[in-house]
């Protein structure tokens, strides 16, 4: 039964056209800050003959792709109603009235054809065209469970993003976060757009600070499930959970090394003074990194494995510091403000995001040399716990601007802030999965 279920779930992805990737044109330069949004139109998908689309998936799937591209900030979504459907007779090149598309200003069009195979099985053909040249760019055919229509649509969003920008799309990524229900907290996962929420832990305890391993297969977290705040790793695929640090005092704030072999963490041991350590996952070997009377906490590994950003109160207030792992030299990165915490190194290595107190907590980014600083959130409650998307273009964070803590995502320049969670319970500590 289970086996069949899993088999049923496997989507077959078939390239329906040979990919002519020899010299692919970059339509959108995402590194150029002045680039205008690329106009694209995504009409409701066509329906093949056969079973009826009771759940309106033809419309919903087009909607998922529309929202993906819109959130990315690189696209201007044209109203599909501007195209007379009579002019879009089919989903292939010779069935589209190209002159009409250029009149509405579209530079690309996405077409889809959906067929309902059975009660819970769909097949969909998706194509992307260059609307100015009337030229096919890419096409895919997906088959899978109707329930997974969002995942299928996200996959084609990735394909579109990849073909038009030359960069990998992150629309299939996930976000782990803490949710408090009654007096307990557990770890949950959602798709990056907040849909498809799943529970990862159920310990009737406090379970905090999820951190993805670089391969996306494990999540490290702190839990009080056995009394003390100890550090655990849970394998997502098997559910296997093991304790990897159960020292006296706190065992908190895990950050995986880029190769996935080590975890930087905070331990207080028996004297209560928290310091940063590196734990080798395989043999549980510990290396101590900081040695200071002050509170040192919240390490974050640089993507080149050479440095660790962390919080220290050694100046009297919590500020962001970096530590060179080779020389052990410590550099202070923030001076302004009285309370700067939760640093996270961007996956491209260029900058560090953190939360700082300035009329409530706000999200900031600072270049790794400390020279350029930018505040991304303003006067909207407390904004904390930043986490980078794998392409460094977006940040997830928590905010209590609605009165309850929810998870938000935004572009790394602070625009397009979007709440992705809802329902009962405060949500915090988002962790964006690798791609």
């Amino acid at each position, binding site marked *: 039964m289970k086996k069949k279920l899993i088999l049923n779930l496997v989507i077959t992805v078939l390239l329906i056209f040979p990919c002519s990737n020899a010299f692919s044109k970059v339509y959108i330069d995402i590194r150029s800050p002045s680039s205008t949004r690329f106009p694209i139109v995504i009409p409701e998908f066509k329906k093949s003959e056969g079973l009826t689309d009771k759940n309106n998936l033809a419309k919903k799937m087009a909607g998922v792709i529309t929202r993906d591209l819109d959130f990315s900030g690189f696209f201007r979504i044209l109203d599909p109603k501007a195209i007379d459907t009579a002019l879009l007779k089919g989903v292939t090149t010779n069935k589209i009235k190209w002159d009409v598309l250029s009149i509405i200003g579209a530079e690309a069009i996405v077409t889809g054809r959906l067929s309902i195979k059975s009660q819970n099985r769909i097949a969909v053909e998706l194509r992307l065209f260059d609307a100015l040249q009337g030229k096919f760019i890419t096409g895919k055919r997906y088959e899978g469970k109707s329930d997974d229509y969002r*995942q299928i649509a996200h996959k084609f969003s990735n394909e579109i993003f990849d073909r038009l920008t030359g960069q990998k799309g992150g629309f299939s990524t996930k976000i782990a976060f803490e949710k408090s229900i009654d007096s307990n907290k557990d770890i949950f996962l959602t798709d990056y757009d907040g849909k498809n929420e799943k529970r990862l832990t159920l310990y009737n305890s406090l379970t905090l600070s999820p951190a993805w391993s670089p391969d996306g297969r494990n999540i490290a977290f702190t839990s009080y499930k056995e009394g003390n705040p100890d550090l655990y790793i849970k394998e*997502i*695929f*098997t559910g296997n959970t093991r304790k990897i*640090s159960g020292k006296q005092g706190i065992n908190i704030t895990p950050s995986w090394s880029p190769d996935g072999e080590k975890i930087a963490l905070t331990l207080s041991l028996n004297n209560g003074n928290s310091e940063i350590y590196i734990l080798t996952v395989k043999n549980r070997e510990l290396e101590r990194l900081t040695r200071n009377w002050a509170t040192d906490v919240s390490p974050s590994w640089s993507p080149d494995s050479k440095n660790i950003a962390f*919080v220290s109160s050694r100046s009297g207030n919590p500020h962001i510091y970096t530590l060179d792992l080779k020389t052990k030299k410590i550099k202070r990165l923030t001076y302004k403000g009285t309370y700067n915490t*939760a640093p996270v190194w961007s996956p491209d290595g260029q900058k560090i995001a953190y939360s700082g107190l300035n009329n409530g907590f706000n999200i900031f980014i600072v270049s790794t040399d400390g020279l350029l600083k930018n505040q991304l959130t303003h006067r909207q409650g407390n904004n904390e716990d930043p986490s980078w998307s794998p392409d460094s273009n977006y940040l997830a964070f928590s905010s209590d601007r609605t009165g309850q803590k929810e998870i938000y995502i935004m572009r790394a320049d602070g625009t397009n802030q979007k709440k992705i969670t809802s329902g009962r319970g405060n949500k915090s500590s988002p962790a964006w999965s690798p791609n």
Partner: protein
Amino acid sequence: MKRYLMSCVTIIFIAALMLTVSCATKQGTRSQGGSATSGEAEEAGIGEGELTESEISASAFKEVTEREAELAPIFKNIKFGYDSFALKSEAKATLDKVAEALLRKTAIQVMIEGHCDDRGTNEYNLALGQRRANSAKKYLVQLGVSSNRVFTISYGEEKPIDTDQNEEAWANNRRDHFMIR
């Protein structure tokens, strides 16, 4: 029933992940190990784990009012300043009496819980709460209480006793709380 639901959720979850991986693999972007197919139930298989160093579980300790009600007026919460783990004079006065009681009643062990107000960052507050608990422990030990009778744990800002958002509430939440056994 609950268990059935849980395993359903787990299966759906694994299935969703399988889907992601299987597609990614087809595109040659991620290698797939054998583990994805082997497990379905939570906590399945033999997991190796590390034992906690201290065998004392926080849950073994009870509220003073429950265990030794007459001691409750002595084991009062002690309060701290903003972002501080320094013991104020009122805190020391309370701890003097706590030490006296512990020296008198040698069968009692105490768990000091360090707590914070919710204005800071959760992670930083977990570290701060630990220091608050350890400040009190250190003081008690200086007064002659054996260190193996005094345990500490930090809850950071996770367990506020006053959920208002004002100076008084924050001050109430910045505390060490005593549990005994």
